[in-house]
């Protein structure tokens, strides 16, 4: 059942894509994604996967070439980070509108300026409304598993949408850690070969990317929204299947020590495991702390969230991005809005943490939890640990 190996997570993500036997990779290098780009090209140039690797001239071209390739029916992968993702932003909503199941590995990184190459989530957050399915990984194992799952979810005829896997830059991408790498035969069993809905080929002529007049544009948008909203069923299905075959459980929202918890942290990405230690430490001190880890960011798991917060008095939502001039961090405002209709909802506070590679330690999570217990902070959202 797979092989336990030590591997850098960026490399492991490329290996996972290789297990999916991709046909085309179009990738432009950017720190901290560059090891993904390099390793994908290693895999292709060593002939381990029969694929074309396009050394595109920009991220804009990377996603554009990925769309062209996916349009022909090729299983296509790309990867980026930060400014690169923002440079792709023109093309992101088109990829989903064209219903092409491209898989994108994102090494999450802060957005300039000032320029900063370190990890936070300010690259993906502005892209949350582009119609991509978004997974967030806690660790290298999840990166590998989610990469394989992403192809299956995206290519499902009921979905037909691009999927991105968010892995924290450096914290995950540059980490050598133990990972169970599934066998090729296992992945082949899990992931059937891709049968595209339509392809650019003269044998069956299609026009892709047509003009939507006002008379149909709104209907087209509705159809895309329904597709992504409904995709959560397929995500659950694929994750159940994964658990059955590989024994590792995935849930849109993963709860940790929340059954009797009064105050519960909310995290996305690699800080989740550090936060678990904080919960353990707080429990030793008699604080009924817990943790919710969001694994599926789009489509947002509203039902799972409502179920997960039952009985909780205070939610301390951490955000690794700002919404300047907005109501708080994007995860916070999402969660607060999601729970608005609940007759008995927890109080919700918001910490902006871990911006641009700022380390957040166990003690920080403990302190945040303790301060949040009152259900109110000094400000609507607090930049935790910011000097001044």
């Amino acid at each position, binding site marked *: 059942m797979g092989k336990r190996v030590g591997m850098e997570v960026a490399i492991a993500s490329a290996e996972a894509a290789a297990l999916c036997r991709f046909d085309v990779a179009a990738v432009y290098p950017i720190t901290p994604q560059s090891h993904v780009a390099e390793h994908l090209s290693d895999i292709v140039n060593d002939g381990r996967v029969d694929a074309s690797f396009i050394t595109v001239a920009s991220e804009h071209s990377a996603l554009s070439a990925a769309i062209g390739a996916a349009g022909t029916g090729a299983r296509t992968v790309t990867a980026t980070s930060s400014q690169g993702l923002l440079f792709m932003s023109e093309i992101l909503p088109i990829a989903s509108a064209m219903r092409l199941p491209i898989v994108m590995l994102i090494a999450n990184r802060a957005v300039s300026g000032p320029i900063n190459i370190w990890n936070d989530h300010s690259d993906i957050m502005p892209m949350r409304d582009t119609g991509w399915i978004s997974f967030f990984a806690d660790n290298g194992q999840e990166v590998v598993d989610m990469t394989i799952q992403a192809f299956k979810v995206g290519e499902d005829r009921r979905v037909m949408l691009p999927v991105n896997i968010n892995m924290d830059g450096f914290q995950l991408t*540059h980490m050598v850690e133990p990972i169970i790498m599934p066998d090729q035969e296992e992945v082949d069993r899990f992931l059937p070969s891709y049968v595209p809905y339509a392809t650019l080929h003269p044998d069956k002529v299609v026009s892709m990317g047509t003009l939507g007049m006002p008379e149909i544009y709104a209907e087209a948008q509705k159809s895309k929204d329904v597709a992504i909203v409904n995709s959560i069923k397929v995500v659950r299905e694929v994750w159940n299947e994964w658990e059955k075959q590989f024994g590792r459980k995935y849930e849109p929202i993963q709860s940790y020590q929340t059954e009797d918890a009064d105050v519960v942290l909310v995290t996305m990405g690699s800080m989740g495991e550090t936060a678990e230690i904080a919960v353990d430490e707080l429990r030793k001190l008699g604080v009924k702390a817990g943790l919710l880890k969001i694994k599926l960011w789009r489509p947002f798991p509203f039902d799972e969230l409502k179920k997960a917060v039952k009985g909780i008095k205070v939610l301390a939502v951490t955000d690794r991005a700002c919404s300047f001039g907005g109501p708080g961090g994007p995860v916070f405002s999402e969660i607060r809005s999601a729970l608005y209709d609940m007759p008995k909802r927890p109080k919700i506070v918001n910490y902006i943490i871990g911006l641009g590679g700022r380390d957040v330690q166990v003690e920080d999570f403990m302190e945040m939890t303790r301060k949040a217990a009152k259900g109110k902070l000094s400000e609507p959202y607090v930049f935790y640990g910011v000097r001044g």
Partner: protein
Amino acid sequence: MLEIRWHGRGGQGAVTSVELLALSAIEEGKYAQGFPSFGPERRGAPVTAFNRVDDKQIKIRSGIYHPDLVVVLDESLVALVDVAEGLKPAGILLVNTTKTLEQLKKDIRFEGKIATCDATGIAWKELGVPITNTTMLGALVKLTGAVKLESLDNPIKERFGRIAAKNLAAAKRAYDEVRIIN
């Protein structure tokens, strides 16, 4: 859990060392992390890299501030960088040097154990080049027992191919020669 900080200069292979140690531990069935100080690495500039090794799953993903062991690949760094910063009082400072304790004490403010190993000398003899990262791995293994010495075999073979045997020989010599000098 064992936490280790490596000091070297860009190009000296500190990042390779943390990777090799992590791979060796994982191969033993242990849990480990190996990661560089995040950011651009420039040849010649002082760099750090980190390891965690444990028998249980390692959840923590924040930085290492209080290591159990500090490894210094390049003795010239001792005068430039506070290599003992945050080192646990019960921890060990391992330096690639031929200097005496008195000489080292001029630059190092650390009351705990200090170990030295002439890794440069060993590397010259065994490898023909003054690249000390694999050599110092042997010294590290001796001082910490993080992994078994033979667990270095496979990762080093995979990494270095034809010159693996020389690297392993160098590590073995450092394993034998490293001394705690206080």
